[in-house]
């Protein structure tokens, strides 16, 4: 089975080009699927047509999600994912936005974003971001099981008296 891709949801073609170029420079190839709006992201994650072939459109390992998107915003996508009853709800989502406003940052964390990265202003910073993103979110971080049952009970090993 091939490696789960990173799902990039970004509408700005110039940003996409820069992000893909930065990830392309990494030693290890990071498969990336790119979508341009929030509705497509939800359709993809739901496995709805035209994304109904999980072989071609697998569940991503991490989502890199812009906030300002056409149709459904990044916040709405995030909210939708966390509302799911399936294990999909624990999908790691990293916001990548040009907004540094605390109202956006707070909202993202309140809605359950795993991390919030500001879009860099230089190529070298973007290269560094890509390399650190890969090292952390595709390496160091232990990913959740996205295919299993959602956890509903008490934390394992904990007994309330």
């Amino acid at each position, binding site marked *: 089975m091939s490696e789960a891709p990173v799902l990039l949801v970004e509408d700005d073609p110039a940003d996409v080009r820069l992000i893909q170029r930065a990830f392309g420079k990494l030693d290890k190839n990071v498969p990336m699927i790119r979508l341009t709006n929030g509705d497509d992201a939800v359709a993809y994650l739901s496995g709805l047509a035209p994304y109904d072939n999980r072989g071609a459109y697998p569940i991503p390992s991490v989502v890199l999600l812009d906030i300002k998107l056409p149709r459904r915003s990044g916040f709405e996508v995030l909210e939708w994912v966390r509302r799911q009853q399936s294990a999909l709800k*624990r999908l790691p989502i990293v916001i990548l936005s040009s907004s540094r406003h605390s109202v956006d940052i707070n909202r993202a964390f*309140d809605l359950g974003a795993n991390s919030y990265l500001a879009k860099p202003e230089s190529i070298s910073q973007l290269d560094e971001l890509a390399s650190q993103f890969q090292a952390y979110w595709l390496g160091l971080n*232990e990913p959740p*099981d996205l295919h299993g049952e959602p956890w509903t009970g008490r934390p394992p090993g904990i007994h309330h008296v």
Partner: protein
Amino acid sequence: MSEKRLATILLVEDEASDADLICRGFAKAKVVNPIVHLRNGDDALAYLEGVGQYADRAKFPLPAFILLDLKLPGMKGLELLQWKRTRREVRRIPVVVLTSDRESATMDAAYDLGANSYLVKPGTRLRSSALWKQFSVTGLILTSRPSLLLVPRLNTRTQSQVGSFPDAGTGAHQTSRLPRPCRRAAAEKDLPNSNTLKMD
């Protein structure tokens, strides 16, 4: 506003040797933020709640993020996560779980309870070097381009003091000596800006 204070990192870890390695890892990664080290879940809850000996938010500011062991004396890490998400004022503080527990049930429970990230401590064999490396990376992603990782602000009166991570390249904070030791909050009378503490 007067001088911005560096955001605090809260480390909840009962193993002294692990805590020491973690702090050294952060220091190696040039993380200059104050690290408050608590050794059990009950203390962490009291700290986040701002009660008891931690009632003074000026001395014990809410952390920018929490590094949480799961196996703790008293309240367990997962219970702390469960409690934390019911508290509006601390709910959005990001939590990085750091544990030796590789059970997928535990991992999934941690994510479902709102953990932002889950890291597994390396085994004992290569412990020191591997953990050190892990934390260099963790530290790097958190601080080498601090302006790129943004942490939520907290709706408390001390908000402006908590601040965000300062720019790594500039600023007076960079002049402070590295490595910086962890502070054990319970043992310290005066936590913030205690640059005078010596290593170990």
